[in-house]
């Protein structure tokens, strides 16, 4: 037995190889490279105001990317997450302005709506066994149609405004969309939400029983079930998580703009997935990190703002992100191969 063991030890992993398996390492390196690149090109980019500027888009994207990362680790996709940020923002605005309710009540009703959508997605996926890619593509289109249709019917317009001055607006604005002054620079409060939720998601994923189940249902649902993990419940809770994140982002956006647009959030769902993948999530589930997804969102935020500061055409943004995605996917595949390779 001991001679067999020492033979096997010859193929044991070295420290650099084990670091490579950390899901967030690639995204961290990518974020540092992107920061240095734009910081060298543009002094504005590295100024305090510049940092506050690119942290803002990174934060709203990051809140979504972290929730989507949890869902992807659990082995599912949510293509309706982007358009749901539009739905929830519209719900807050329409309920407050057209039905005259307190903004806080509108915000809570919007949350209920988001949870209903999340529950619908989750139950449909686990009950039918259909790929979540298709199920949520369906709910994505349904929501997109509802956003436009219902908004036009109720308001006769595709832009709903006039949140300012409604009861509860100022306190809700303070919580979701105000700015924090730090050394004379205004940082959006959404950055605080983003950092807090990334920390919370990381603790849940790595240090709770539920987090262990998330990895398990994404890695091998049958094996997880065989040892007593409530696989369906875990997946439904993950869909509720992305829906809640969409509600938060929709609310932040609506209160910040004091209005909502009927086509808001369309197309963002793929950006969330790309950020999660750059952050180390495998498309096949069972592997990934919330911190990595936050770094992925940071790369997006820095690039979208940095390209403008560098004086380039914003069209290059998409090319850059496409390249990042491909590099990330190839890197992740190598990691997976390593992790799944059996020692013989």
């Amino acid at each position, binding site marked *: 037995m001991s001679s067999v063991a020492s033979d096997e030890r010859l193929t044991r992993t070295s420290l650099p190889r084990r670091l490579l398996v950390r899901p967030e390492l690639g995204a961290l390196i990518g974020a540092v490279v992107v920061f240095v690149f734009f910081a060298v090109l543009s002094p504005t980019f590295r100024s305090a105001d510049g940092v506050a500027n690119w942290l803002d888009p990174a934060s709203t994207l990051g809140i979504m990317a972290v929730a989507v990362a949890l869902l992807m680790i659990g082995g599912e996709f949510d293509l309706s997450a982007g358009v749901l940020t539009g739905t929830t923002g519209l719900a807050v605005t329409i309920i407050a302005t057209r039905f005259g309710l307190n903004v806080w009540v509108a915000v809570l009703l919007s949350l209920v709506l988001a949870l209903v959508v999340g529950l619908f997605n989750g139950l449909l996926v686990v009950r039918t066994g259909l790929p979540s890619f298709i199920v949520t593509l369906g709910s994505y289109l349904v929501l997109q149609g509802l956003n436009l249709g219902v908004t036009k019917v109720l308001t006769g317009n595709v832009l709903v405004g006039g949140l300012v001055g409604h009861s509860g607006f100022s306190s809700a604005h303070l919580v979701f969309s105000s700015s924090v002054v730090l050394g004379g620079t205004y940082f959006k409060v959404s950055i605080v939400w983003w950092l807090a939720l990334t920390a919370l998601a990381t603790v849940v994923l790595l240090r709770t*029983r539920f987090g*262990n189940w998330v990895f398990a249902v994404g890695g091998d649902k049958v094996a997880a079930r*065989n040892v*007593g993990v409530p696989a369906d419940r875990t997946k439904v809770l993950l869909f509720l998580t992305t829906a809640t994140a969409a509600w938060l982002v929709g609310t932040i956006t609506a209160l910040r703009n004091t209005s909502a647009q009927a086509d808001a959030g369309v197309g963002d769902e793929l950006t969330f997935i790309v950020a999660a993948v750059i952050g180390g999530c495998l498309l096949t589930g069972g592997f990934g990190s919330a911190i990595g997804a936050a770094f992925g969102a940071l790369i997006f935020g820095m690039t979208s703002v940095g390209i403008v500061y560098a004086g380039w055409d914003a069209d290059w943004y998409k090319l850059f992100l496409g390249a990042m995605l491909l590099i990330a996917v190839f890197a992740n595949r190598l990691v997976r191969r390593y992790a799944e*390779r*059996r020692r013989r």
Partner: protein
Amino acid sequence: MASTQSGAPLLEVRAVSKYFGSVIALSEVSTTARAGEVTCVLGDNGAGKSTFIKMLAGVHQPDRGEIRLDGTPVSFASPRDALDAGIATVYQDLAVVPLMSVWRNFFLGAEPRRRFGPVRLFDVAAARRITREQLAGMGIDIRDTDQPVGTLSGGERQAVAIARAVYLGARVLILDEPTSALGVKQAGAVLRYIAAARDRGIAVVFITHNPHHAYPIGDRFLLLNRGRSMGDFGKGEIDQAELTRLMAGGAELTELAHELARDADETPGTGAAARLLADDADRLAE
């Protein structure tokens, strides 16, 4: 091996039958599993081994006959019920999640928790420590419990699953073909882990189609063929040659061997091997 033949067996299966529509999957099968002993269930593909263990594991319910635990008739509505009664099943290659670390797999579904202020968190330090201790206690040498289970060999994966079931309080451990996909050396190691589980007083039900793996470790042998029992023997009632002959289909194999040998006159290359097979079959038939 001290066997405790007296008293009610830990697990007793009495004349169970299972039908799927008009198909008789299992007919009037009986055996026993005692604490600290290994009951081997042997049979070829389609013999009903899977149906048999799925009934013990609570996946299927028997249509006739009964299962007794500690002498009391029991019925399991779900795998969870069987698990709660102390019957743990390790399915081949379906017992672990490859991308997760050894310690995360070890405690999957039974995570130890510790109170940190207002919340209860997964006690990772304890999970790592207990995993290492338990694996070492079973003679399983895995130095780094942080590595993904997918990087372990097939034998080591089975070992982790067995050690897990033992630690989590299984009284009856059902192993579904734990050695069948393994090389000789690894299969030997898994047999050692089975012995370790047995020595801890667990009743092991070992499903296999390999009599060479079953005989050295088994205390009782249930032979299945096409859903029927070909006998339920104590170790003293059957020897390895007879077990192998019954498993191999006895007369069928002898006939096959002679048939191959005749054909071999024209093709000398296969002749030697076929004659060896024939000799083997003849020797077993003696």
